[in-house]
């Protein structure tokens, strides 16, 4: 066999081996990416919305409204640090609403949803601006969308007394509906809570996240 041919064959074999090795590495990388536990939205949230803390934070009991059935909400008492500033306080409770449901079955908002911004107008109108995931990943349907909107409204009205009404935006813009059904073009009235109602049933207790205490009476999401 001519020497030139031997050299060419050797180069070819080395190239093939190198290609196989790099392909295997590439395959591993693709597999790692596909198994990544965080979606792009979650990664963005981790970057943009770390846990909110302010100088005026005081450990207190917040009432966070999560699902207690397909069309019902129940407040869960959660021990957490809340700011004296209503805007920051609203961000803190909404952050908890999205990220800390006691169980996945109690989740009312998509895990990938992010509160992009929250501000309060002088008349007490709270503007909550959520990421696209709230619109695209909330299960489509009247009940599920009502549950999502009511969990936001009830959580805000029970923890941020300065708020009088709520407007929900998606990525800075008004949208017709949350996921095809529930109307988001208007304002949702918020009524500061009166004296705490007596629990209807002790069995209504729900599993609460770390630091949580009790669950109060269930409320029907559709009526407020």
């Amino acid at each position, binding site marked *: 066999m001519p020497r030139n041919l031997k050299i060419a064959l050797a180069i070819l074999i080395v190239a093939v081996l190198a290609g196989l090795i790099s392909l295997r590495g590439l395959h591993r990388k693709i597999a790692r990416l596909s198994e990544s536990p965080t979606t792009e939205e979650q990664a963005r949230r981790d970057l943009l919305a770390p846990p909110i803390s302010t100088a005026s934070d005081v450990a207190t009991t917040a009432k966070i409204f999560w699902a207690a059935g*397909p069309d019902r909400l129940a407040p869960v008492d959660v021990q957490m640090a809340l700011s004296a500033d209503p805007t920051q306080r609203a961000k803190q409770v909404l952050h908890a609403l999205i990220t800390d449901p006691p169980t996945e079955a109690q989740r009312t908002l998509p895990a990938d949803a992010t509160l992009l911004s929250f501000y309060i107008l002088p008349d007490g109108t709270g503007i909550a601006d959520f990421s696209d995931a709230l619109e695209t990943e909330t*299960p489509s*349907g009247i009940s599920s969308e009502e549950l999502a909107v009511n969990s936001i409204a009830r959580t805000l009205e029970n923890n941020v007394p300065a708020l009088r009404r709520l407007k929900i935006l998606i990525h800075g813009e008004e949208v*017709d509906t949350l996921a095809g059904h529930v109307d988001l073009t208007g304002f949702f009235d918020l009524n500061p809570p009166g004296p705490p109602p007596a629990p209807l049933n002790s069995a209504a207790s729900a599993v609460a996240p770390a630091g949580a205490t009790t669950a109060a009476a269930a409320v029907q999401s*559709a009526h407020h």
Partner: protein
Amino acid sequence: MIGMAAASAAVARGTRAPEELPYAQAAQQQQTAQPPAAPPAQAPTQPAAPPVATEAPAHIGPVIVLNPAHGATDTGARGENGIFEKDLVLEFAMATRAELQRQGYRVVMTRTDDSNPSYDDRAAIADAFRDFIFISFHISSTGTPGTARTYYYQFWNPFTIAQTAPAAAQTVPYAAGKNAPATAKAVATPLHALIPWEEAQRPETEASHRLADILQADLAQHFPGSPAVSSGAEVRDLRSVTGPAIDVEVSSVAVTDPNSLRVMAAPLAAAIARSIAAFHPASAAGDK
């Protein structure tokens, strides 16, 4: 954002009550209730969309406007087995149309194909009639399969006409629905004032609630697991409708076999027909 609907239409609507009219007069009223002759219920700034289909013109009583939700690129809820809400609600509406026409009702559909009229266009189709009932069809992506729920539009905030409309000498009280939010106190509404397009459903809340409860009670009997009473919700497609308007939502696209939803079409249609007859006795079969 605030298109203004003719408000005197709502006031006039409040005085109509065909069921209180003699048969012939009601029939005459219905004959004149064609879209070109009844523009007052329509907002000047809203599109004047013509009805897609009108049939059985000899019937008296309210026109039944059936609204299959979604359409075209808006699929609505999507099941993992390729079930699209937009397709099945069209089948439900078609089945209901056939049942209602069989009983002599005049039926109009907001869409009969895979199109997607806007919310306002759909409302305008209904609002063009003087006397109508609007029924919208949905299929959820959650909930117990085989159950059905009815909804009426429940406004979150108090009536605001008095603040937004020009002052008028004569006022009539607005009575909130019995399940209206606690904040929705009775507020004086100027007579002949304009009703915001966004709140056109508000004066009809009580009637819509009643119709929804009648239908829900029927559904609870025929679809086990369904609730006994209707629910209030801020469902977008009802907001600008100026007559009794309800949503019917069937659960759910999560089923593995779409035929398990299709078999609900006939009993659902029959329940709707019975409920309309109960809600609007003058249009019941025995009176025709």
